[in-house]
């Protein structure tokens, strides 16, 4: 199925003399996509060299990351463009700083996920199809995520969005036990419904604007006409709802805890990080031309954000499985992510992206630690203890590196110093809302900031305890090297952005 979608993605840009074609601009998308196919070929040729497959994946992602740099360095008014047809606003692919930063986020988080699921690190995982399938799926979904960020027309947008989604479903199912099946089914049904909505929304977009590109000019023109305005708003609503599924916004969130709990931790990390980047990137592509759309969409996003935060936080507060906790926290954070969009001004897209990236870094670190703790053999032979909060008792003292990383991640998610990046992200997210004078929404956000603090400090308090208080605490003698690399990579990003938040925010403008 990856094959199909990859291929259709490659069919989309017709390489004729009519169309400009710049490989280097497309590279952040093409490199992982090609690597996904290459891994499958490698798997056919040399099925036993699983480390080689993983290496290819890692190298492709590193290359992809390097290739996003030119886009990051551009200004918002002058993005890298390619696949341009000879018409006004006719470019199908635009990589400005925001899009490139999101690409960077997607590729980077996928890199951490790949390192984390390095073959042989987790003896419990007998993944069906072998590591090559996992690597290939991750790469394909990452290509989709990178593509959707820069997509400018309905076609590549749809294809890339689903390319980012479908492999994720398969990834969840890969663990191959009952919860995985259930999680995959939940995710599957959700993404089917979401795709239906998005497709219908895209069709209505075309109907109302008469344009297959996300063009601000065409949207403005459609908004001026009362009849087309209704259609366009309906399209926006459908697109928003469809993406709400992917972003786990309430009321489209129910799949999140099931899928996270069913998947392996690396895959859950992938869902929480890369998939979310893809979803938000897709949303930003839609929202940008709608900046002038006015109240209904604005109100809708604000409502979604408020409800998501509240419900996510409240339910996260009562979870005992760290993965489920992180799942509900995703729901809450998704609310924060779209919060600035309710202001619908120039700042808000970058603010939303900035918040998302901060969240992605922190949540990745959390997942890395959860994975290491969960996959470590336990003292008294219990198998599932990493999946309860008590398993983290005294981690800060028992294993300072893991405990410190997790602690910093949790504080970042809570938005408390020393997790300064989380705090700055909250400032960034609230700024457009306050600037637009949406006081009610700001008040809800304030309340949720407090509940969020409670959510993460509840876990953090467990880390702080005396290690001897906990039951059968994990004996983590040594962390496997790839997992350590993942930890160092994501942890370093967290520390660096906490000390110098500009590293993160500077990417976006």
């Amino acid at each position, binding site marked *: 199925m990856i094959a199909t979608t990859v291929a259709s993605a490659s069919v989309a840009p017709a390489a004729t003399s009519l169309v400009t074609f710049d490989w280097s601009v497309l590279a952040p998308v093409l490199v992982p996509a090609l690597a996904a196919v290459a891994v499958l070929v490698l798997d056919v040729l040399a099925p036993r060299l699983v480390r080689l497959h993983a290496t290819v994946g890692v190298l492709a992602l590193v290359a992809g990351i390097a290739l996003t740099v030119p886009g990051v360095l551009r200004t918002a008014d002058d993005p890298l463009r390619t696949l341009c047809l000879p018409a006004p606003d006719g470019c199908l692919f635009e990589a400005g700083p925001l899009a490139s930063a999101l690409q960077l986020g997607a590729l980077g988080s996928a890199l951490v996920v790949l390192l984390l699921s390095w073959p042989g690190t987790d003896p419990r995982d007998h993944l069906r199809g072998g590591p090559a399938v996992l690597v290939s799926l991750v790469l394909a979904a990452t290509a989709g995520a990178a593509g959707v960020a820069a997509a400018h027309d309905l076609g590549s947008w749809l294809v890339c969005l*689903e390319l980012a989604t479908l492999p994720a479903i398969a990834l969840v199912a890969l663990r191959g036990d009952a919860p995985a099946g259930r999680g*995959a089914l939940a995710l599957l049904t959700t993404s089917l419904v979401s795709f239906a909505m998005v497709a219908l929304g895209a069709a209505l977009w075309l109907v109302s604007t008469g344009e297959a590109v996300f063009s601000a000019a065409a949207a403005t023109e459609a908004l001026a006409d009362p009849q087309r305005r209704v259609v366009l708003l309906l399209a926006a609503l459908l697109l928003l709802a469809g993406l709400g599924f992917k972003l786990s916004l309430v009321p489209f969130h*129910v799949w999140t805890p099931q899928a996270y709990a069913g998947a392996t931790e690396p895959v859950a990390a992938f869902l929480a990080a890369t998939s979310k980047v893809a979803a938000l990137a897709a949303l930003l592509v839609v929202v940008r031309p709608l900046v002038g759309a006015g109240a209904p969409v604005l109100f809708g996003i604000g409502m979604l954000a408020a409800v998501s935060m509240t419900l996510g936080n409240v339910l996260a507060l009562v979870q005992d499985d760290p993965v489920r906790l992180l799942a509900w926290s995703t729901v809450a954070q998704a609310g924060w992510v779209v919060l600035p969009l309710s202001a619908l001004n120039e700042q808000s897209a970058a603010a939303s992206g900035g918040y998302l990236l901060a969240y992605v870094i922190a949540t990745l670190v959390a997942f890395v630690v959860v994975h290491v703790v969960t996959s470590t053999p336990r003292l008294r032979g219990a198998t599932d203890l990493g999946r309860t909060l008590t398993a983290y008792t005294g981690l800060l003292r028992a294993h300072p590196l893991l405990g410190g990383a997790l602690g910093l991640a949790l504080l970042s998610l809570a938005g408390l110093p020393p997790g300064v990046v989380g705090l700055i992200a909250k400032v960034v997210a609230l700024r457009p809302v306050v600037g637009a004078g949406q006081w009610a929404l700001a008040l809800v956000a304030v309340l949720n900031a407090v509940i969020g603090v409670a959510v993460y400090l509840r876990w953090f308090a467990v880390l702080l305890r005396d290690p001897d208080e906990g039951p059968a605490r994990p004996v983590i003698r040594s962390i496997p090297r790839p997992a350590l690399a993942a930890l160092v990579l994501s942890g370093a990003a967290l520390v660096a952005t906490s000390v110098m938040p500009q590293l993160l925010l500077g990417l976006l403008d």
Partner: protein
Amino acid sequence: MHLAGPYLLAAVLAGLGAYGVLARRNAVLVLIGVELILNAANLLLVSVAAAGGDRWAAGNVLTLFVITIAAAEVVVALAVVLAVYRLRGDVDLDDVDLDDATVGEGQR
């Protein structure tokens, strides 16, 4: 070309599909509902293209894309069904719980 007919049909299809998605808690019926919505979308796209309303024949091309992606979705669905079958020994999707908002541990 007069577009009222296709648009009306699309609205009916989308409505039926939405009903199927919303009302039925059965996975297969949800899938059918989704297909209906997708066909409504395709119908809209094709109508726009037939009316010559867009540049680059995008309506037609998008229809192909939607069909492709829908097929890919079905493939993934089949794969997941296969996986579930191997776990549970049957492929009865009817009792798949679609609105499990379980707090804490999900029921096994």
